[in-house]
């Protein structure tokens, strides 16, 4: 578009992406998709991982050039060649992950984001302007606080405020609530909803969560495998209908029923202490035992030492003191011990914690076994054919969607990376399983499959330690539930008898 042509009329505007097709090589990521977002509405864009949601919004924002298709912004056709064009038209995007500079204050972050930052900033004037801007906004953020010091909910509000401060009137939110607690999510979405209703703003929100769609969105568009799978006003659709449109004919893995009795103690933590990266005590005298055939869930708000606890168990962090015993023997997370005790680990953020992005899917699923037959001839010579055939078997057994075993694993979507890790970790016998937020950010098909695999491992007699920030998941899977707060275990109950208000109270530290 030619900047400075005729300014857009003020107020909310809608967009209409018509017949969008996006091909990468011979692969079609989007096939003739239409997305019409009417002015002054909150529109939800639904779809499983890999359905093409991100590709579509990246085309709209000008990060990708759509192979075919037209964009109508407001009532005029526009060519958006790059994100700058999109910004000039008033389109803004809030990403799933934060884009603020942690070491700077909120005010500095807001001013920094402007296109026309002067060489010398008159901070007194900027702060006055910012305060005036904030007084018109429904949410408040502490302008003088460093971003590193504020909570995830406040950061997400800052991200949204940043877009409004930059005078964007069409916001694209990419899973805006994935980093928030349910309470924070409701608050932020409620305020956005109010701003949309007051006019002046249109929102397109990518999400997995039906609850949020039902509560806050006006209309929705559903994508499946790069094609349009459904659209319409929210009030005319039930969650069941949405789920069917999203997953199509694909059947969800059915979770096996809980069966079998808990056996002897398999995993024992004895007065375990560990520090975080900054050297503060993160895990404080944690003692816990998990029996075979039992799932023990650890609940807690993110940042209460769960990550460090899992890292110690995974061998990624040294414990300061205390002892871990597996089947009665001291455990120091060596390869030999992991193998002897048939330990499996499903860490959070599998690409960051359990995979090498640049190595192939076949290599990644072989990390546990590569130094044994059939992968290693004579214990040292790699047999490529064995890697390949094992990977092909696991790809089909665990429904990993990949262009082939030789694709670098970083090219897979999040759900499929987690499936690959699942194939590696649960492909053999399991006696101890440690899982941390295994379903974070994944779609139903992947969640159902992972839950089923965890339950199946338990039923086969594995001791399972499940650390999760999702209370529903914990209550569904756990036999026993403990709450972690400030590095300590502060509450324990049988999951079937756990009192939710009691659990919530302990999570908040009361």
């Amino acid at each position: 578009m030619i900047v400075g042509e005729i300014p857009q009329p003020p107020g909310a505007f809608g967009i209409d992406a018509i017949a969008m097709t996006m091909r990468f090589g011979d692969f079609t990521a989007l096939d003739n998709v239409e997305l019409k977002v009417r002015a002054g509405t909150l529109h939800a864009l639904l779809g499983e991982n890999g359905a093409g949601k991100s590709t579509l919004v990246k085309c709209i924002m000008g990060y990708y050039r759509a192979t075919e298709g037209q964009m109508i912004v407001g009532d005029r056709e526009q060519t958006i060649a790059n994100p700058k064009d999109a910004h000039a038209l008033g389109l803004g995007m809030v990403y799933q992950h934060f884009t603020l500079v942690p070491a700077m204050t909120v005010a500095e972050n807001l001013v920094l984001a402007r296109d026309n930052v002067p060489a010398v900033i008159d901070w007194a004037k900027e702060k006055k302007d910012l305060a005036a801007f904030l007084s018109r906004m429904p949410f408040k953020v502490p302008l003088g606080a460093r971003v590193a010091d504020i909570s995830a909910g406040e950061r997400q509000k800052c991200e949204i405020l940043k877009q409004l401060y930059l005078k964007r009137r069409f916001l694209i939110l990419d899973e805006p609530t994935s980093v928030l607690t349910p309470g924070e999510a409701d608050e932020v979405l409620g305020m956005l909803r109010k701003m949309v209703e007051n006019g002046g703003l249109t929102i397109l929100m990518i999400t997995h969560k039906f609850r949020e769609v039902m509560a806050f969105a006006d209309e929705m568009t559903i994508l499946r495998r790069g094609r349009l799978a459904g659209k319409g006003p929210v009030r005319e659709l039930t969650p069941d209908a949405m789920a069917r449109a999203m997953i199509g004919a694909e059947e969800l893995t059915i979770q096996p029923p809980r069966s079998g009795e808990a056996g002897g103690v398999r995993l024992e933590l004895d007065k375990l202490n560990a520090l975080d990266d900054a050297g503060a005590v993160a895990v404080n005298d944690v003692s816990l035992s998990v029996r075979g055939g039992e799932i023990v869930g650890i609940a807690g708000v993110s940042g209460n030492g769960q990550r460090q606890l899992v890292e110690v168990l995974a061998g990624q962090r040294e414990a300061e003191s205390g002892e871990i015993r597996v089947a009665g023997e001291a455990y120091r997370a060596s390869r030999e011990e992991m193998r002897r005790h048939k330990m499996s680990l499903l860490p959070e953020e599998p690409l960051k914690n359990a995979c090498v992005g640049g190595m192939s899917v076949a290599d990644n699923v072989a990390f546990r076994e590569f130094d044994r037959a059939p992968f290693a001839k004579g214990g040292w010579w790699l047999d490529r054919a064995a890697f390949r055939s094992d990977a092909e078997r696991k790809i089909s057994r665990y429904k990993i969607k990949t262009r082939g075993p030789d694709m670098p694993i970083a090219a897979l979507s999040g759900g499929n990376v987690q499936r690959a890790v699942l194939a590696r970790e649960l492909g053999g016998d399991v006696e101890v399983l440690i899982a941390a937020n295994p379903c974070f950010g994944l779609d139903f098909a992947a969640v159902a499959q992972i839950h089923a695999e965890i339950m199946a491992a338990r039923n086969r007699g594995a001791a399972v330690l499940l650390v999760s920030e999702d209370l529903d998941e914990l209550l569904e899977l756990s036999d026993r539930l403990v709450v972690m707060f400030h590095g300590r275990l502060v509450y324990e109950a049988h999951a079937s008898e756990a009192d939710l208000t009691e659990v919530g109270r302990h999570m908040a530290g009361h």
Partner: protein
Amino acid sequence: MTSEVADSVEAAAAAPTGFLGRHGATIEYILIPGAALAGALVVFGIFVALFGKNPLDLYFYMYQGAFGTWFSWQNTLTRAAPLILTALCTALPAQLGMVIIGGEGALLIGALSATSMALAMPSAPPLAVQFAMAAAGMTGGGLWIMLSGGLRQYRGVNETISSLLLVYVALAILNHLVEGPMRDPASLNKPSTREIGAANMIGSIPGTEVHWGLVFGVIAAIACYVLIYHTTFGFAARVAGGNIRAAKIVGLSVGNLILTICFLAGSCAGLAGMVEVAAVQGRTNANLAAGYGFTGILVAFLARQNPLAVIPVAILIGGIGASGGLLQRRLGLPDASVLVLQGIIFVFVLASDALYGRIGFLKGKP
């Protein structure tokens, strides 16, 4: 590219087709360093033009001096031999994500160890002396770089800095020994150790004047390649180099990997030191600090840390070094001008790193 992939049926049909699609990445690995090299030559041409010389003459004489005659080829290959070995000293730790730039130090220590070994066994048969020298050189160099690896693993010291600083420590040890305890009283102007003896020299490949060090280098490079890409040890190293958290979660002992890789890397550079003593100098003195260790860093980066690619790149860079004499004689350029060219190449190669994955026509059809 996209992080989204459709179901396997569609995906199977979506495998990249066409020559560019299938070999795009490989072409990139050749095209980008090639272009960086060409860019560096152009800039060097401008530099030479400032001296009032014709750049076209320059390129002609560089070719002549490096690859134009059988004589210049031999000169080039002789220079390439230690470069292959010192480049491996950088390329091997790079597989673990470490940047080791202290090959020069390992070369010096390797040369000292090899010389000491030869002087310690004056009456042994030459073959035994040569083997012992190689073993001593490799062990000395290996331990030297392993020191950097150990400092990193157990004390958190940055391996790049420590390996670089250890070069100067090695140089100081060498100078101390050749000027003091190990000095041959007969070496008056240039303090040196005693000679290892003509019988113990490793000699040339039959029919050439290129010494056996070239064969050692090629064998070492191939061995490193096989080690990294075809053995379980190399696989573990690539896992740890790619993502140390993933390596830990599958229980790999990262500390052992670091120490072993560092030892092997230092062994290569130490062997280069042994070769320089046993094939060229015949003794240890300050001549050994000729910068092969530092040029090896350039070779490793230009080869994108691939042990096999190190061989042709070392020959290319060896050729540039070999052409220095001719440039001096025919064009009257200062001897150091090839060092200027090496510096320019290094800058271009490092800058060209930003181009990977950004060349439009290699990404397949849009």
